[in-house]
């Protein structure tokens, strides 16, 4: 019960357990078999399940995404491995025009139970085409569910739920968290979709943070507590379905909110979170909801620039201070 494992092993365990349980689960992607992906997250699976179920594909993202949709419609439960979240653009048609809409368009007769696991996250010096956090794009498309695990524990529990879900689910793993450890029970567990997790209890301000931004929020909360500011951290865990209730409840209590997500800020996840809170907790808010997304710039390669583009604990501390001390923000 108290063992700690890495995020990477947690994902691996989740998939292995589900593949053992259900022979219709198959894995599909580039270098998923012997290589176990470039991040080595899937190491060992092909040895246990064989190349019939752990299937190396050519570099054909639209193609194997489409194949997964057809396989899902006819009796398999494919897990598609998309090596970088930036390649989502390549599979958007199969994901959003096909997978997301098939159940609805068929009047509920066809189902597409598949998982697209991919990643997000900058500051790896991987430049503009290997660093994007594109969760907002898929969260906008009805028919898709979207999960954002924030630690090894969520990585395991959400992955298992995703595999058993009868709908297309997109899971974004932050590549920078693969080696981060967390307590993960040995016993089987699942994390239901649409249930936010209150990661830290506080009174003065609510941080709604996704994925690795939960760590940023925790670091900021620690610092703030030294100054006597008590922050509550809510991790939605899934963007779709979104547990609006838990978020609103927290904000109604604290009267202040900062939302943090690593996607570009404009037209991104922070917009949805902030808009909902602002609308639905309107009469409780003591200050504007502050948004912290990544800068609206392609991710630069240079370390001197890249680190400036993502939300940081210091930035969060500064924002929290402002609104908790009653400084007027945008009061022009």
């Amino acid at each position: 019960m108290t063992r700690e494992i890495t995020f990477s092993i947690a994902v691996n365990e989740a998939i292995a357990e589900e593949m053992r349980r259900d022979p219709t689960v198959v894995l599909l992607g580039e270098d998923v078999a012997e290589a176990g992906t470039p991040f080595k997250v899937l190491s060992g699976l092909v040895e246990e399940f064989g190349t019939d179920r752990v299937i190396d594909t050519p570099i054909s993202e639209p193609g194997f995404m489409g194949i997964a949709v057809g396989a899902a419609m006819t009796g398999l439960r494919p897990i598609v491995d998309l090596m970088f979240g930036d390649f989502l653009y390549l599979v958007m048609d199969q994901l959003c025009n096909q997978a997301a809409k098939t159940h609805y368009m068929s009047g509920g007769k066809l189902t597409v139970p598949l998982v697209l696991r991919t990643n997000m996250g900058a500051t790896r010096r991987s430049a503009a085409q290997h660093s994007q956090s594109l969760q907002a794009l898929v969260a906008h498309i009805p028919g898709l569910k979207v999960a954002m695990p924030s630690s090894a524990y969520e990585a395991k529990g959400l992955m298992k739920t995703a595999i058993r879900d009868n709908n297309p689910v997109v899971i974004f793993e932050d590549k920078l968290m693969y080696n981060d450890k967390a307590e993960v029970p040995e016993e089987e567990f699942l994390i239901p979709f649409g249930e936010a997790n209150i990661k830290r209890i506080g009174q003065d301000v609510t941080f709604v943070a996704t994925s690795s931004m939960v760590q940023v929020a925790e670091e900021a909360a620690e610092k703030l507590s030294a100054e006597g500011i008590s922050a509550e951290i809510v991790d939605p865990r899934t963007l779709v379905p979104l547990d609006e209730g838990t978020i609103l409840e927290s904000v109604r209590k604290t009267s202040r909110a900062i939302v943090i997500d690593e996607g570009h800020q404009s037209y991104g996840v922070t917009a949805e979170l902030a808009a909902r809170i602002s609308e639905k907790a309107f009469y409780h808010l003591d200050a504007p909801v502050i948004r912290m997304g990544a800068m609206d710039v392609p991710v630069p390669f240079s370390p001197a620039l890249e680190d400036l583009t993502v939300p940081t604990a210091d930035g969060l501390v500064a924002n929290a201070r402002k609104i908790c001390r009653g400084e007027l923000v945008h009061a022009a």
Partner: protein
Amino acid sequence: MSETRQHNTDDYIRMYKQMVRIRAFEDNANRLYLSAKMPGLTHMYSGQEAVAVGICEALTIEDKITSTHRGHGHCVAKGANFREMFCELLGKEEGYCRGKGGSMHIADQSNGNLGANAIVGGSMGIATGSALTAKRLGNGQVTVCFFGDGATAQGLWYEVMNMAALWKLPVIYACENNGYSEYTKTDEIAAGSLVARAEAFGIEAFQVDGQDVLAVNNLAQQLAERCRNGEGPFFIELNTYRYHGHHVGDINRDYYRSKDEEAEWKKLRDPITNFGKWLEDQKILSADELVALNEEIAADAEAAVTYALSAKYPEAHEVNMHVYADNSA
């Protein structure tokens, strides 16, 4: 007709009937459009009947097909009923998709039709994935992927052909080359050879007269069988012709296709007329029987239209249903 009798009489009659049913369906759909009773647009399959019927008659009910924006023919050929089909075209609750899909998304999973698709080429991955399921589950099913000549311009096809070939999947890519991709002749938008494109991936490829239902059916039977024996995938280019415009609203089309060309195909190469003649020659059906059969089907179609016109629309609360499948099962 390329053939003397090989099947039993019932098979021939069913093929004929199915072609007539498609034509009757389309004639009614077109009338519904012209009389402003049908919401939206639709794409007529008339002229191409021998393709859908020749192929689907070589398949079992468990075998799968994927279809296109021009999908009514595939849907009928794979076993669908007129009533649910017209209800779907009219957006009614009793439609195959409860009115949510319409003409361009009509699907009939009860007969193995995984659905029409409004994205040209959009179902090529789906068909290939269905074949992956068949291979993985060892259920002996074959999947046929219907698409038009225009769809060969979609890169997706090359990606999935590559995987189908590498993994030896039981899928048949059936390209209905009707000479046009919307308002443009195929040669203006397709370089080289379609057959060679499939062969380049090590896929055995065939060309067949898509107006000759027996030729199509014979080839499809062989290839379906060979798919079941693990020899897939295959590619077929079927030469055919659409009688109507690209869609029902494409009426003045002389600027891209001559009236003479249309008349010639209709006169000389109509798949139904020609097969009817053959059935007569072979003494399988008399001229009178053919007429009777046509009339019976026409009456069926009209009855289905009447039914569909007065059928009810889905209730407002359905708008929110089926966005997500539930997980209780």
